[in-house]
């Protein structure tokens, strides 16, 4: 893949967008999302009773003179929230696309590049974390838009391989990144084992999930007729089936049901979900469904 993941014209459009999150995270000042956690900010938020160990500089002495009790002024803070982007680099990301369509992996890399650029524009730090069976070597993109090129090079150097194992990934992730933040997962979420429970673990540990499910045409609307031997792209498992209209309909219903479960999981935990087809151009995706669901403003 020698051509750039996103072109200049598209990057100029991305300048107007910002990555947003819904949850309030604590942290050091420097972000651009207001948090409900109090901190060393400039804007007054509330009073609370003084406790031992509180900063005496925040005591409201006027209130002490009046009520002879120590009250502490609490200020609103816009903390710097870690944004981590998990990109599925398993073998299944190369399957399921129709003829002439981009693979899910390529589509995911472009989408990741667009999100990284949006974060860099707002001086956010975005951690690119590819995964398949386990978490792979990450890349931290930070320092503004002029640091986008290393991130793009990192994305272009990735190669899809291995099986997806969300349990292992969730465990590694929670161990490696204990600080809560926005977790963007770009994947087809097609793990033979259950991947809903690992995602629930991530949400339970306080991470805000933005699940971006990618699918190719064949993933959702399989073509073909008659007897076909299906081979799993990750495990190599083979299944012989007879394809007909009914079986295709049942397949699509099962796929849509699974996507609905993913969406419910995300929404239930205060996160968001976007299901994207690889047939749609990346620009249309960012300014379309992703813009509508992901609070990308």
């Amino acid at each position, binding site marked *: 893949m020698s051509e750039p993941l996103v072109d200049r014209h598209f990057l100029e459009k991305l300048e107007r967008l910002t990555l947003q999150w819904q949850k309030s995270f604590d942290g050091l000042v420097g972000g651009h999302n207001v948090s409900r956690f109090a901190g060393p900010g400039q804007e007054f938020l509330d009073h609370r009773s003084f406790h031992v160990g509180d900063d005496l500089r925040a005591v409201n002495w006027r209130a002490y003179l009046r009520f002879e009790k120590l009250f502490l002024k609490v200020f609103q803070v816009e903390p710097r929230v870690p944004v981590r982007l998990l990109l599925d680099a398993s073998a299944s990301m190369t399957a399921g696309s129709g003829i002439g369509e981009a693979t899910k992996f390529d589509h995911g890399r472009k989408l990741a590049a667009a999100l990284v650029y949006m974060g860099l524009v707002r001086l956010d730090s975005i951690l690119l974390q590819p995964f398949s069976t386990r978490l792979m070597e990450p890349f931290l993109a930070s320092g503004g838009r002029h640091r986008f090129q290393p991130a793009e090079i990192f994305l272009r150097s990735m190669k899809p391989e291995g099986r997806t194992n969300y349990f292992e990934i969730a465990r590694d992730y929670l161990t490696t990144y204990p600080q809560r933040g926005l977790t963007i997962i770009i994947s087809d979420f097609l*793990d033979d084992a259950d991947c809903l429970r690992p995602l629930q673990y991530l949400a339970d540990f306080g991470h805000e999930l933005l699940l971006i499910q990618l699918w190719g045409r064949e993933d959702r609307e399989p073509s073909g007729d008659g007897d076909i*031997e*299906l081979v*799993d792209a990750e495990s190599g498992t083979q299944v012989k089936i*007879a394809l007909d209209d009914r*079986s295709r309909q049942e397949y699509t219903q099962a796929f849509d049901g699974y996507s609905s479960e993913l969406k419910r999981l995300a929404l239930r935990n205060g996160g968001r*979900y976007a299901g*994207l087809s690889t047939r749609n151009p990346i620009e249309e995706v960012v300014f379309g*469904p992703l813009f509508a669901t992901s609070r990308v403003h």
Partner: protein
Amino acid sequence: MFFLNLTAAEFFVLLGTLAGFIAALYLLDKMKRKKIVSTLRFWRPAVTAQEHQSRKRMREPWSFFLQILSLLLLLLAIAQLQWGIRQRRGQNHVLLLDTSAWTAQKTEQGTLLDREKILARQYLAALESSDPVMVVHADSLAAPATAFTSLHTALEQAVEESVSGFSALNLEQALGFASQALSASSGSPGEIVYIGPGLVRNPPRDNQNVPNLRFIRVDANRGNCGIRHVGVKPGAETGAWNATVTLKNYGPAASRVHLHGQFAGYTFAPRIVQLPSNQERTVEYTFETSATGALVFELEPHDSLSQDDRAEVWLGRNRPLKLAVFTDRPDVLSPLLRANRGISVTIAGTSQYRPKPDADVMLLDEMSAPSTPEIPSLWIDPPGPKTPLPVRAVVKNASITSWDSSSLLGAALYAKDAQFPTAEVFETFADDLLVGSVANGPIVVARPQKSGHAKLAVIGFDPFTAGLRFQVTTPLLFADLIRWLSPEAFHSAEITAGPVGAMAVPLDPGEGSDGVRVTGQSGFPIPFTIRDHAVQLFAAHPDIVRIASGGHQRILSLTLPDIADVEWHPHKVAEGLPPAALFLPSAIDLWKWLAIAAGLVLLFEWLRYGQRRAAVRKNALQAASSAHPADQDRELVSR
């Protein structure tokens, strides 16, 4: 029920092969095809039911059955399945249409050929429409007018375009040709049909070897008298001619005819000739004339076959060669020249020279002509400088070193011992013929006719000097040169009017066969053979043939029709037009209906199964293309 195009074995082999191919394609469609997918988790619920269902029954067996059925119907159509009896399907017939001289006979409804054409059309109409027929025009040669074809328009056109010939019918050759054509054709042999009067020169020896022969007779009026032959020979005297006219009565009853003769505007007294039945009579004429013109003989009264009632031949010159001699020593030349009865000599002085005297050839003796001769000329020792050929040198006491004995110019000239006191050696050019030469060059030269100049021959010495006048070389040299200057004067002509067709012209006993040339009226050579000392040739159409052999010339005016006089009575053959029922179609073509049925089955199969398959693909594409808007709606709602 039978196949027209294929045998049963071929049909079943083809059917088995193609059905196997279709079944293989069907099975190939059923064979497991590998497909790499992202996950198998959503397939599992469908696998069990579908595999179970697949094992229980074939998928779309009716589609497979309909395809096999349409294939079977198409193959039956290609094999041309027919319902009926195969006995006389696709029989080839040969239609021999008589175009001999007899067919030009006039009747009340036209000619015999017109009647033949009507019968031929009726015969073609009676045939089964798919039977191939070959139309053959039969006279002295059988010439096919069409190939075997069932196109009746082409057959009727060939019948319509047939014209009467001048030759007699060679039925044996025509029947042989028809038999060969039938045996060489691919279809089963049918009938050989002869339509005509059945009058032949030589009847076939045996018609038993010709199977399925049908004779459709067209009755001819045999009451015909005609001229069979006219022969004209020069008589012994100059200008005398002997003519013989052979008449024949072809009819069953005796007849009395008047024979009228006419030559160059003069009419002979009519001769009354009594002709018995089937007999010939010869009438002789002797007359003298120096004119040229057409000699015409005509029979009266005319009968229904008028082609042989009139004969015409062209008579050329029958007189001695006129030789004009311009000399100042007539006493020397006169004995030599007057010794030949074929030469009429006129002697005049050199001062009386005229470029165009009333002669065929002029002889200029030791003189220079003030103007160029306009007729062929023979020069003897012309004095310089006005010689007809430029003189290169004058030699003395020279001897001949070579004669051109290979051509007629130097025929019989071999003597080389003659001594010439003086001789002129000429300068020659292209096309000049060197007759005699000395060591220094040619002294006897002939120059062919060129534009604006008549033939000329030059002798560069005086052949009447004391030493030469008594040698045989001198008269031989004169004779050769004068013969070359006017060859037609020495030809003995024999003029004959006869019928077209094969002809054998016997050569005279002493006449060689090496130099025989035969040319037609157009001047092109006619092929011939010489057998038994006779020139044998064939003319299919009226022509005037010239047979030249040395100094002898025969002119054959082959303009009379060759009237055959033998009636053919075949044994054990079908006669007359066939009954219509004989050629009624005994089998019905089914291939059109089979092809239509196959098409309908294929259409039904497509409407029932193929269209559904296409719709499935179309729906899949539409569903895939509409995936994004649906997702968008869903996401918008979830937001």
